[in-house]
């Protein structure tokens, strides 16, 4: 990789990061373009049904969806481990659709880590470099660099079966990074870890990606994980991209009911009629912002629980609903109310600021601002 920065600046950057690292040179990150990808297994199973996608250079991009939605297949096509039946793939502007994986400058962190059991940790790390024919001195230097970068310490000298799950994950990551790929692919790398470690590694991975400036493509089925780590998310279902957007776009303005439900939204109400600035739903008639309005007569209305206010005072212009508290769940920092309005279940979430909690069975007035109502397509 060429280094466009003059030597002096590069030196000061090195000083700033505390020591020379392989990745202290600025990266020329690569963008990814997918055009019309189709993938079929056997005669009946369609894994990808016409996927078009552009991933910006240097992005942390996540493919999100339930099992079988095609996200892993898409990742494997990026890696070169699967060939699409139709469509093209470009990395850094270069068409690599027909390039075999061992000639693509793309590396993968596998879900099962796939560390070679017959090699030591050091030899695992150096494997890709060795296959590319780099001399021993180079390899040793890079192994030392990446070990420091990822803080592997004494793990280097161990053998693979002496490592814990979290340690293996770091080695798998280091093994991929040491090859300085244009794109790093991660196939649900955190799914086998316990919750505490997972949370910690989510933050570390995100920091790492920002520091490296490398394009990451991450696959997960956990929407919280996706929102924490990503610059942008693509939600997939049945081989089709349902929505691409930033975490806030996907969470606050889901494109359709599938995305809404997948992101964890419960308060979805079918729309039976729609006029200029109001909609008719199972909850009753609610006004919303004209900007949010659509031409279609059907669809869903999404109400985020955190936007509902419970109390007798209804602010000017707000929608007003009457309901009964059916359940109350104390969640420490928040209080979750399961309400019933017009026979429909409605969930509300209130921050715990020490106010009086509503009791089960209480009648309660609910206010919601029209700006907070979101229309979701079918």
């Amino acid at each position, binding site marked *: 990789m060429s280094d466009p920065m003059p030597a002096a600046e590069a030196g000061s950057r090195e000083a700033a990061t505390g020591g020379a690292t392989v990745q202290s040179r600025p990266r020329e990150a690569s963008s990814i373009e997918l055009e019309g990808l189709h993938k079929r297994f056997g005669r009946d199973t369609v894994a990808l049904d016409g996927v078009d996608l552009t991933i910006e250079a240097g992005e942390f991009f996540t493919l999100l969806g339930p099992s079988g939605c095609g996200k892993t297949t898409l990742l494997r096509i990026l890696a070169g481990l699967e060939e699409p039946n139709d469509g093209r793939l470009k990395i850094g502007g270069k068409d690599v659709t027909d390039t075999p994986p061992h000639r693509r400058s793309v590396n*993968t962190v*596998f*879900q099962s880590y796939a560390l070679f059991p017959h090699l030591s940790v050091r030899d695992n790390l150096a494997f890709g470099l*060795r296959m590319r024919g780099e001399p021993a001195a180079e390899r040793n230097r890079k192994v030392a660099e990446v070990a420091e970068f990822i803080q592997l310490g004494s793990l280097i000298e161990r053998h693979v079966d002496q490592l814990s799950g979290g340690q293996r994950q770091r080695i798998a990551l280091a093994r991929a990074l040491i090859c300085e790929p244009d794109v790093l692919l991660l196939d649900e790398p955190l799914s086998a870890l316990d919750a505490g470690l997972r949370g910690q590694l989510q933050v570390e991975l995100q920091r790492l990606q920002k520091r490296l400036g490398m394009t990451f493509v991450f696959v997960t089925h956990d929407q919280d994980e996706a929102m924490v780590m990503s610059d942008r998310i693509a939600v997939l279902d049945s081989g089709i991209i349902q929505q691409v957007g930033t975490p806030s776009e996907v969470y606050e303005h889901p494109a359709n009911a599938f995305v809404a439900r997948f992101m964890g939204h419960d308060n979805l109400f079918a729309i039976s009629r729609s006029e200029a600035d109001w909609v008719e739903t199972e909850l009753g008639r609610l006004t919303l912002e004209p900007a949010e309005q659509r031409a279609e007569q059907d669809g869903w209305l999404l109400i985020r629980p955190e936007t509902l206010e419970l109390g007798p005072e209804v602010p000017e212009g707000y929608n007003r609903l009457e309901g009964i508290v059916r359940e109350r769940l104390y969640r420490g920092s928040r209080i979750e109310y399961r309400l019933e309005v017009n026979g429909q279940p409605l969930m509300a979430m209130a921050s715990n600021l020490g106010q009086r909690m509503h009791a089960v069975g209480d009648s309660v007035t609910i206010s919601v601002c029209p700006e907070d109502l979101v229309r979701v397509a079918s």
Partner: protein
Amino acid sequence: MRKRTLNRGLAGFWWLTLIFLYLPLAIVVLFSFNSTNSAANFTSFSLRWYHRLLGNEQIISAFYNSLVLACVSSIVALVIGCLIGYGMYRHRHRKLGWLIVLIYLPIVLPDIVFGISEMAFFVQFNRLTGLLEPGLGTMIIAHVTFQIPFVALIVYSRFVGLDPSLFEAAKDLYASPFKRALHFLLPTLKPALISAFFLSFTLSIDDFVISFFTAGPESATLPIYIWGAIKKGVSPEINAIATLMIGAVALAAILSLLFNRQGRR
């Protein structure tokens, strides 16, 4: 109360069975040290039959033949069986029923049918072409034929036990197909290849029926020699050579025990 008598009875039965299993071998070993020729009375301790053994050129040549046959056939079978085991794994989602049948055929066939088929085939082939006279060559061919399935199955099951993403990781890390074979497949297979070689070697050394029917006049192996000696009438050296072979088996048993203990650690 009943359970205890049952357990005592079972334990007794166990020891009886062990005696049953080891008695014939023990007698052979015992009488190999007999100073007289008698099979019924043990006279006194002597090593004379072992001395006779060392001077017996036929036995030495039979031993040599057994070793060469086992080594050569095992190596050939290792190569062919390894290839086929890998092919079976790599293409396991295809319908390869015919291949499975071919592989199981040598295992399933009774060894007498196997041996006679080979003999008939080689004799006629020799008559027609003058090649493949009965001898070490034909024996090697026959041995390789029954060794290939064992090697293939051992290699195949070793592959099946691997994490499939290891293959993909090797591709992902820039290994071309040739380099994958050299730096990933072979090192991973090493223990399986060693045990496959060991198994093939043992099967070959131990074989009698197939060797017997494919052997030529100069290519007697140790089991064939022993057979001939038994048929001619009991020659006391047989006890000695049999004892040596039993000793080799005992050694293998001890080694395998130690090997397993080490592996467990």
